[in-house]
């Protein structure tokens, strides 16, 4: 049964990040994508023992570096200076992506332009004819981890659902997203379709109406 939280408003970005952090298993190896997913780190408790991977060649990445800690040779995938944590390790790019592609990472958290109900992901290119294509590690991340979580607002500013039957933006990966954490709902995605675990500020029926999707109750 979907947990319908209609007594409250929708989740803010911080609350979404906290929900994601709470669902990351203890001891997991995790990659947090650039942008909003990075904020999940602020909500991980040391007791969880989560080890962060950054695709530019490091396990055991710590928080952003400040002051004297800043070292131009120690940056994350967003090119932000970070610190190392005890037990950290460094490796080259081919090893870093082998670790990802080989299914060794437990969880990857990414942002998205669109996600389909069966887990297709579009997050690298809007398809605009004058846009310069830039993919970075997005396609490798999308298909690499055992579980891929997406964090996004469920609707565009114009009110269009970003969860869709079929992505209209160019794909990053096929059938790769396992769960969406959004301001209005947490939704599991499987080849059978989208199942809503919880809603926030809306009922499941309202959500079905606003998205126009055949959402199942999970």
């Amino acid at each position, binding site marked *: 049964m979907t947990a319908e939280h209609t007594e409250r408003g929708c989740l803010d970005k911080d609350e979404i990040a906290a929900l994601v952090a709470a669902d990351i298993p203890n001891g997991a190896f995790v990659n947090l994508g650039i942008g909003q997913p990075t904020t999940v780190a602020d909500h991980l408790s040391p007791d969880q023992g989560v080890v962060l991977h*950054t*695709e*530019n*060649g*490091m396990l055991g990445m710590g928080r952003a570096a400040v002051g004297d800690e800043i*070292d*131009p*040779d*120690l*940056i*994350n995938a967003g*090119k932000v200076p970070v610190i*190392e944590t005890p037990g950290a390790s*460094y*490796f*080259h*790019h*081919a090893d*870093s*992506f*082998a670790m*990802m*592609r080989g299914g060794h990472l437990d969880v990857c958290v990414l942002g998205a332009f669109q996600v389909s109900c069966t887990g*297709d992901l579009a997050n690298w*290119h809007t398809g605009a004819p*004058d*846009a*310069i*294509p*830039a*993919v*970075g*590690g*997005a*396609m*490798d991340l999308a*298909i*690499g981890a055992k579980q891929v979580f997406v964090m996004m607002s469920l609707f565009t500013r114009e009110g269009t659902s970003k969860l869709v039957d079929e992505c209209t933006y*160019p*794909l*990053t*990966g*096929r059938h790769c997203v396992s769960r969406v954490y959004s301001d209005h709902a947490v939704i599991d995605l499987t080849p059978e379709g989208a199942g809503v675990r919880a809603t926030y500020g809306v009922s499941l029926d309202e959500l079905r109406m606003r998205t126009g999707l055949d959402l199942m109750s999970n």
Partner: protein
Amino acid sequence: MTTAHLTDADAAVADIPDGATVLIGGFGTAGQPMELIDALHRHGAKDLTVVNNNAGNGDHGLAALLNTGNVRKILCSFPRQRDSWVFDGLYRSGKIELEVVPQGNLAERMRAAGAGIGAFFSPTGVGTPLAEGKEERTIDGRDYVLEYPIRGDFALVKAHRADRMGNLVYRKTARNFGPVMATAATTTLAQVSDVVETGELDPESIVTPSIYVDRVVHLPGVSELAREGAAG
């Protein structure tokens, strides 16, 4: 050759011909062999194909090489950045060819070149525009796309420390593409901030064995921060 040729930056790049494919290390500025790139720019080889994760930042280094029209084609994963105006302008006016490659495929294609692999099936990019026109195959129920090696005529990498044989150790995330590119080029040039006598690096800590390194350029003081803490 058992000893890497210790030389200066300008001499190291002097035989890079027009039309060469040059692998250039670095992720952003970390691990970017800025002085070797500047030397290549002064050398003036034209019609180059460059492989780098990005397509230049600001006006210096790779961006300067692009700006003077020395590069015909670039292979990278992430050309578009806040400060990639040089590339953006060239691309929009059709003056440079771009092949966008997912970052992991970029690294693995160079790894394959260095390891003598003819091609490989990667799950990355399946079903996306970057797989269009490529051979696909389903193996044990999973879909893959065929990817070919990327070989360089020259690799320009930045390491932390070398010994006189050309064994290399790197520093933190500045390692990134260096070790893979060093294996994938016919001739590898490494710029380092420190050179020690053969035998002074712990063999257990060497990341790039000397067999992959042809020329070492010693640039003390380039990475002041790189002094403390690195293995070896």
